[in-house]
């Protein structure tokens, strides 16, 4: 028997996974730009549907921005594990000696980096386009940064549970939208308050608390979901 090479450490493995996922995304730079463009186009849909009057739009801006961020996350969540499931990588991941809890976290982190983080960083541009008052922009970015992380984690649960189904496409929205709602409510409330001049700190704190909870629990649910999906 060859002397047994030790399996790579958990941290190293997770970093390799993260790098793999980011490389996959970067192979098609278009995939990274897409959520942003999607964001911009849906921003453009609202004036077209609701009328271009600036005051009206401004009133709705926090809600609209948050709803779009949510949709854009929803749309991409489905793909987190799908391609890995389809080409058999997911089975292999389940067989890996490293703890699934952490590998799953690497997948979610990659997803958040290429959707949530980018979205939060460019959101000020879109905010200006639909006349969100400039004072609220800081809060918007902060709430998106925290909130999209929660969304990615929760979306991962839905993705894990539906990945084994032949066409999971919209089922996922059904499963995870209810969990998205609290994030949406507090996120848009934070921005709304910032517009009105009320300090948005408490709302942001609530979202941060949700994030802590999600980081602790969602990977467990995701790991369980993946095991079930691969087995089905």
């Amino acid at each position: 028997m060859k002397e047994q090479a030790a399996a790579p450490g958990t941290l190293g493995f997770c970093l390799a996974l993260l790098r793999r996922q980011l490389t996959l995304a970067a192979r098609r730079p278009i995939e990274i730009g897409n959520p942003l463009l999607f964001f911009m186009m849906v921003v453009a849909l609202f004036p077209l549907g609701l009328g271009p009057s600036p005051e009206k739009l401004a009133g709705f801006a926090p809600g609209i921005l948050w709803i779009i961020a949510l949709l854009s996350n929803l749309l991409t969540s489905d793909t987190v594990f799908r391609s890995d499931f389809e080409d058999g990588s997911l089975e292999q991941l389940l067989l890996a000696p490293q703890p699934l809890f952490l590998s799953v976290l690497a997948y979610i982190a990659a997803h958040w980096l290429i959707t949530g983080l980018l979205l939060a960083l460019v959101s000020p541009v879109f905010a200006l386009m639909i006349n969100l008052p400039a004072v609220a922009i800081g809060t918007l970015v902060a709430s998106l940064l925290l909130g999209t992380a929660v969304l990615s984690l929760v979306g991962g649960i839905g993705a894990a549970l539906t990945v084994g189904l032949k066409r999971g496409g919209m089922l996922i929205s059904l499963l995870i939208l209810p969990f998205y709602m609290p994030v949406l409510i507090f996120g848009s409330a934070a921005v709304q308050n910032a517009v009105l001049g009320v300090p948005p700190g408490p709302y942001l704190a609530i979202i941060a608390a949700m994030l802590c909870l999600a980081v602790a629990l969602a990977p467990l649910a995701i790991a369980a979901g993946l095991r079930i999906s691969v087995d089905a």
Partner: protein
Amino acid sequence: MPAQVPAGTGGEALLAVHDLCLERGGRELFRDLCFEVLPGSLLQVEGANGAGKTSLLRILAGLSRYGFTGRVERRAPLLYIGHLPAVKALLTPRENLAWHVAGEAVHSNDEIERALAKVGLYGYEDVSSHALSAGQHRRVNLARLYLSHSPLWLLDEPFTAIDKGGVAELENLLVEQVQRGGAVVLTSHQQLRVACQVQALSLTEGLVA
């Protein structure tokens, strides 16, 4: 049909199966299957299409966890290669091996190049994997065998889409693994031409044809 396969060469069993029964789609695929896989043994699971070979291998690997009765003891790290290649089309063969999700070991760039050369992909290390032919695509996955230190291999139809030369090389590799004290459990519809003893486990239930 209770099946009892005699054990391999020696040492402690890498895998032990006790009283395994499986029913799928209303048909009993196997019943009271008991066997051990000892170091140095090569076990070929045989059976017609639909006999339950894949189902058995997935149970052995631990990917299927319910729907069957009986007990499987895994006593060593294993490497499983299934019907799906687990090769990402967007990554190059090199990246596919370096960042493989099975997390078996960290491989140096040299090792990876050598493994790829051995499966006949010299010069294709940095081509995007979706530009490979069906057989080349599967070969990327098989390169893992050259890198693996796992004592137990579970291979589900490893020869699919591989040409004659490739099959012969793969057979040599299996013999090597057996000779260095590893064990191989594989399914295949082809007759193995290897220079070591092959145990057969045949699942007779299958197509009614």
